[in-house]
């Protein structure tokens, strides 16, 4: 009986060691899969990178999603890629990166907008071959925003002044420490219009619509899934099963097996990301004040 106790103890100790060690291994997403349809979730605000916070807003990192799309596309077992979208949009650059990666994929791509697929989230969805949206999902919202808080009044109240030292008169355009001049406001709006036009033409091209048709809808207004179907912004309203049925028809198979592609964050990743984030802001506070308003779709 003594021997059995020792055996059980050693087995438990090794299992615990393996479990702890496995948490420290940075694993790439996907790796091998045993399904023929890759499921990639675009969940949260779309940004180029995930800052790796422990808490707070959910981030859909474009870098990670693009990597997962490439992995799924390279895997010969995967015949189609299904994107489950739950995103209100985010950075214009990040949304474009995801949309481009989707378009570059050589597999059948389908988007399922579950709850929200608006703005940048819709941009990504529009790049797929077929969009299914929940009839009550929020979608559309084709527009660009770059609002920010301006603190000059608050600073003035507390006797804090902004010492403006710039070489190049627009270097501090959009700084929250002073009011925008009318010229600066005009410039920023022009930039937003450019991005808006780019967004509109991308959606028009992706959806096979006229630019003027999309422009009419691109007021920033959101549409429910059922409305979006009538406006040709989505192909069909339904649920995940509807999206799966489309894939079955498209691949001419009776059964599909979904396998989720996702990035596995190890403890080490989270800790290092958190440290990097803190050091980044510490350094930024010391040497830089080159803030520009973030452009969000």
């Amino acid at each position, binding site marked *: 009986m003594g021997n059995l106790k020792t*055996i059980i103890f050693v087995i438990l100790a090794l*299992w615990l060691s393996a479990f702890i060690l496995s948490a420290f291994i940075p694993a790439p997403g996907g790796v091998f899969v045993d399904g023929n349809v890759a499921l990639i979730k675009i969940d949260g605000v779309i940004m180029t990178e995930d800052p790796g916070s422990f808490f707070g807003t959910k981030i859909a990192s474009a870098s990670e999603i693009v990597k997962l799309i490439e992995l799924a596309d*390279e895997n010969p077992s995967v015949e189609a890629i299904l994107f489950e979208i739950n995103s209100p949009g985010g950075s214009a650059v990040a949304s474009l990166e995801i949309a481009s990666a989707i378009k570059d994929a050589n597999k059948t791509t389908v988007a399922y907008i579950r709850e929200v697929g608006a703005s940048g989230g819709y941009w990504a969805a529009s790049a797929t071959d077929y969009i299914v949206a929940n009839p009550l999902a929020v979608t559309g919202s084709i527009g660009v925003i770059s609002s920010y808080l301006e603190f000059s009044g608050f600073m003035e109240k507390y006797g804090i002044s902004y010492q403006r030292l710039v070489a190049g008169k627009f270097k501090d355009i959009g700084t929250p420490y002073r009011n925008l001049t009318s010229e600066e406001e005009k410039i920023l709006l022009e930039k937003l219009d450019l991005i808006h036009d780019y967004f509109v033409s991308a959606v028009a091209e992706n959806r096979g619509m006229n630019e003027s048709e999309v422009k009419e809808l691109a007021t920033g207004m959101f549409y429910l899934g059922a409305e979006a179907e009538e406006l040709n912004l989505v192909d069909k309203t339904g649920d995940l099963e509807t999206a799966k049925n489309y894939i079955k028809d498209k691949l001419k198979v009776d059964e599909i097996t979904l396998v989720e592609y996702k990035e596995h964050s190890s403890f080490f990743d989270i800790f290092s990301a958190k440290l990097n984030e803190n050091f980044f802001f510490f350094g930024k506070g010391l040497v830089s004040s080159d803030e520009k308003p973030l452009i969000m779709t």
Partner: protein
Amino acid sequence: MPRKKRGVDLPGMRTVESGAQLWKRIVAFFIDILVLDIIIIAPFRKYFSMPAGGIAESVEFLANNPEVTQTLKIILFLSTILALLYFSILESRIGQTLGKYIFKIYVRSEDKKQLSFWKVLLSNITLIPFFPFIILWIVDPIHMFFSKNNQRLMEKFTKIITVQKYVV
């Protein structure tokens, strides 16, 4: 020790040893591999599952994804260390792994001295899945079939023997 039963002197029980039977050793080994699969490989399984395609597709996929290959190497390396610890700790301390415990077989040194951890570790280097140790994957177990006491090659080399006990 002579034992007494109802006042009659009976001859003492004797324990004799012989090389463990081959089938017991093989089944015990597979039980240990199953245990290792559950306790060591399972925690790493969250990172990947087996490929649906053939070997050629897997090889191609790995060739195109060096970071995946790197991760698999790390997992393989850590699993090997833990597997070696499983055999070495248990066999050096109590002479048995779970598989051997079930079949009541033991390892001991040929000279019946206490087994050292390092000696047992050396006898199990066959488990290392890297060159040149993989050569032992074939040579080491084959030696059992031709050895008098069913010893593996590395057991012979380290003077370790796997035995089963009989009470007569």
